[in-house]
């Protein structure tokens, strides 16, 4: 097979075949185009303000390492004026996080960014090792996920930072869209497609600058730029449902690579149909605002994607948490009927008209938001999810001690 030439520069040998449009690119053009596209996402969604201090949620893995590298490059090239720092979470899992934290420490030097590590032990009084010792392996992903969502926010608050960016990529978003579709959870589906989550009330906003970047291209970017990243699998891994969604997406990509971005776009389009949900999309499609949604339901997942065992107990825990969420704001009709039939004491749902979907209306309140009465963290309920889980854990610990 004669080597193909790059369709962009038409001189160098093509090394990359882009999943989104099958374009064949050489290394230099690929790196430039990948960066340009992230820049386009950032500017069209108006993600950043000049002078803003931004924390990069850094795990040492491919996504957050590429995010840090690209943001540093773009910040210098396009003079965003951002003050970038690395923020890492130590879940307290021996033999898992240690090596990746070493990678983050090297990244901090390579990218000349200050690094802060916050641990579950200091935030919650529990390491994940201790949680697993108490509740067993099954269902632990739920604890870890709930804790992690808050941990990044709390770490940012400690640093006086109001914006955390994460390395979630197009494959992650597609996976979450698919999972919520399969659960029939359109409200969550809608929120998961949003590029920015969190609002003025939540103190810390979250965004996903790599939302439209293929995982494949992120890995190739890291490879061709020789970035220093670490791949690992959580030793407590199985999150079976996400694993299945991930496998399905990768199989679809093999047959039809555009499927991943198509699922992301379908998710955004469905989000527009969900009452009160304000989907974010590229400003070049006519949506000039940068709408924000509550961060609580941000994409979960922890990189444990192989799904080797069944996750029934984890699913049950997930379900329980969800049922505990008061459906005070908008939900899709099906969810309303179901929650009303299950929970007698739930407050009345507000009637909100379905929007015409022309993209001009402002985001309607969907959940009544307040703060957790225990920890003060943003929560739509009296007690936030993390405190609920901690209560259970602490009871268990007390019992064990007695």
């Amino acid at each position, binding site marked *: 097979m004669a080597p193909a030439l790059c369709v962009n520069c038409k001189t160098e040998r093509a090394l990359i075949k882009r999943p989104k449009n099958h374009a064949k690119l050489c290394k230099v053009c690929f790196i430039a185009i990948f960066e340009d596209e992230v820049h386009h996402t950032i500017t069209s969604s108006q993600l950043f303000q000049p002078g803003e201090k931004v924390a990069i949620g850094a795990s040492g893995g491919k996504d*957050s*390492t590429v995010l840090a590298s690209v943001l540093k490059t773009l910040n210098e090239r396009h003079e965003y004026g951002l003050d970038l720092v690395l923020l890492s979470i130590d879940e307290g899992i021996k033999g898992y996080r240690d090596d990746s934290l070493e990678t983050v420490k090297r990244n901090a030097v390579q990218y000349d960014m200050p690094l802060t590590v916050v641990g579950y032990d200091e935030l919650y009084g529990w390491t994940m090792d201790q949680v697993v010792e108490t509740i067993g392996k099954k269902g632990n992903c739920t604890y870890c996920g709930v804790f992690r969502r808050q941990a990044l926010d709390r770490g940012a608050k400690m640093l006086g930072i109001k914006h955390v960016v994460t390395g979630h990529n197009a494959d992650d978003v597609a996976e979450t869209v698919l999972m919520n579709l399969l659960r029939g959870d359109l409200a969550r589906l809608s929120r998961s497609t949003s590029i920015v989550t969190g609002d003025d009330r939540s103190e810390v906003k979250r965004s996903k600058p790599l939302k439209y970047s293929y995982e494949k291209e992120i890995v190739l970017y890291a490879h061709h730029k020789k970035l220093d990243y670490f791949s690992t*699998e959580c030793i407590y891994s199985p999150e079976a449902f996400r694993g299945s969604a991930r496998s399905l997406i990768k199989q679809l*990509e093999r047959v039809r690579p555009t499927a991943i971005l198509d699922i992301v776009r379908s998710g955004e389009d469905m989000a527009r149909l969900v009452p009160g949900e304000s989907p974010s999309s590229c400003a070049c499609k006519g949506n000039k605002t940068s709408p924000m949604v509550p961060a609580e339901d941000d994409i979960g997942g922890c990189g444990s994607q*192989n799904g080797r065992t069944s996750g029934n107990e984890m699913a049950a825990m997930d379900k329980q948490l969800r049922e505990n969420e008061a459906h005070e704001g908008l939900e899709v009709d099906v969810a309303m009927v179901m929650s009303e039939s299950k929970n007698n004491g739930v407050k009345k749902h507000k009637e909100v008209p379905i929007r015409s979907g022309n993209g001009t209306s402002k985001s309607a309140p969907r959940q009544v938001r307040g703060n957790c009465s225990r920890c003060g963290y943003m929560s739509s309920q009296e007690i936030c999810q993390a405190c609920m889980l901690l209560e259970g854990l602490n009871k268990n610990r007390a019992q064990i001690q007695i």
Partner: protein
Amino acid sequence: MSSATDSGEIPITVDFSGGLEMLFDNQRRHSVSLPAVGTGGQPANIAFLIQHLCKNFMKDPRAELFVLDNHIRPGILVLINDADWELEGEEAYEIQPHDNILFVSTLHGG
């Protein structure tokens, strides 16, 4: 396209990354002498290399993390001399002496 068949083996290097090294003795780079002729009598190609690696180099029982239904698991990228194997004919690419084949997983987290 048969420069190495005289010796009967093709010397190549095979790299694993993105977590795949775990399946191959935690070693990133392997020097491999690949039989020049595959099982069906045809020149050794990527499909044959994958079989060869599974049989002779994999130190982990979880072969399904590398190969599913006799093909490379979706989500694992294959680079032939740094080029996406999709540009080179994928499994049918005939291995040349001193090729570098990289298997990099996109499936593992950080």
